[in-house]
């Protein structure tokens, strides 16, 4: 049975022209699950619309 993230991995792999060999897939999926879980933790935090991102960070 296909894992829930497999279709997503295939689609992004195609969009990014980033091949994911079958041997890599289980570890990529496991890592993606961790990344998305942590990203959701950030996503859940409500921020004011005015908040500026910090892509160029100044301490």
């Amino acid at each position, binding site marked *: 049975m296909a894992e829930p993230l497999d279709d*997503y*991995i295939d689609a*992004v*792999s195609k969009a*990014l*022209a*980033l*091949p*994911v*060999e079958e041997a*890599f897939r289980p*570890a*990529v*999926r*496991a*890592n*993606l699950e*961790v*990344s*998305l879980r*942590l*990203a*959701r*933790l*950030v*996503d859940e*935090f409500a*921020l004011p619309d005015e*908040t*500026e*991102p*910090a*892509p*160029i*960070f*100044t*301490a």
Partner: protein
Amino acid sequence: MTAKPEMKAADIAKAVAGGQLSALAATEAALARIKQHDTVLNAFTDVTAERARAKARAIDADIAAGKKVGPLAGVPFAVKNLFDVAGLSTRAGSKINRDLAPAKRDATLIERMEAAGAVLVGALNMGEYAYDFTGENIHDGPSRNPHDTTRMSGGSSGGSGSAVGGALVPIALGSDTNGSIRVPSSFCGIFGLKPTYGRLSRARSFPFVASLDHLGPFARSVTDLALAYDAMQGPDADDGACTTRGVEAVMPKLGESISDLRIAIAGGHFQKNVFPEAVEAVSRVAKALSATQVVDVPEASRARAAAYVITTTEGASLHLDRLRKRPNDFDPAVRDRLIAGAMVPAPMVDRAQKFRRWYRAQLAEIFRSVDVLIAPATPCTAPKLGQVNFNLDGVELPVRANIGIHTQPISFIGLPVVAVPVPLEPLPIGVQIIAAPWREDIALRVAYALEQMGVVSAPAPRGF
């Protein structure tokens, strides 16, 4: 006189400048010690012996000619192999980068160390592309802990921790994106400085996460750390993030009283997921500093999550072409994390960066009423090499994912930190002395006071 293995950089420089020790003798002593012990420690990937001897002879010639020499005259040092060293390919712990042309010019920080009289003796092992907390490297083998060679040195600047902890060199340079200076400092029982983001130039070093990358020194004493730090400060147009602030020398302030400083213990996230040794280390430091106030750092767990997201996505972006063309030449663990990082939806990255602004404002507020925060550097002492899980309060947790949980929320907003070694038995462990942006002087003064009290020190290596 001869250079003893654990001789501090300050003592070497003083003896060299005073003519009691030649720079060449100090250099030869370091080279001999590397030759004798690095087969076990595996800290070095390159030893630049001839370059070092030439530099040392030049210093000795200057002294013989009556010329003034710098504050690090004749002090051997080494750098993580992501620093450009003229004549070497900057491998950054990878197999792929070995195909790069040799660097034509040294990294800015090497140039500044050598301008102060220090002598580069080699390049140091590290986790692949700095995406690591263990000090293990699939291509070069692990750098080993100098107090127990079956244990991790910590990453990603593992060779830096191992070389200084093992007293092969008194000073090393490394990088810290999420904890890669502070973690090896903790595991190897040495002092490490992660300065404010933008303080020290990163020019001609191999990047990882541009908005989180810092460079800094490791040493066996606070004075040596401050000497190196002062030598490396100053603006540099070759690093777009480097501050335009002038040199703010710490050495003259190091011994100033700390009685006026407001020192607190970081609570919440920083008191969770810690082994008894980390609790004991923080407690000893807090007691010595008479710090009793506990300050909750709001949303530090979320800050760690946001740092993780930014790291994995920026890292993926940096390596995207290499992931496409040479996936089988990566360490599989690094590759699979980076491929996953490339797949994180963009809005989540943007939100992580926005959260960073919010979190920075919270810490700025805390630093209005506090000068220093104390927190563990790592949740535990050095794990065994290859160890996958550790058991904390009956719960099995993955080692790699949890080593940096207390360092990540701090580097996330670029705060300066000195990692100080608490010499517990059987293994040392580090504590973070955290200050407000641009106040490295405060963190170093506190570290120095703790060292004077005998609470923190770099234990003699005894693992080899």
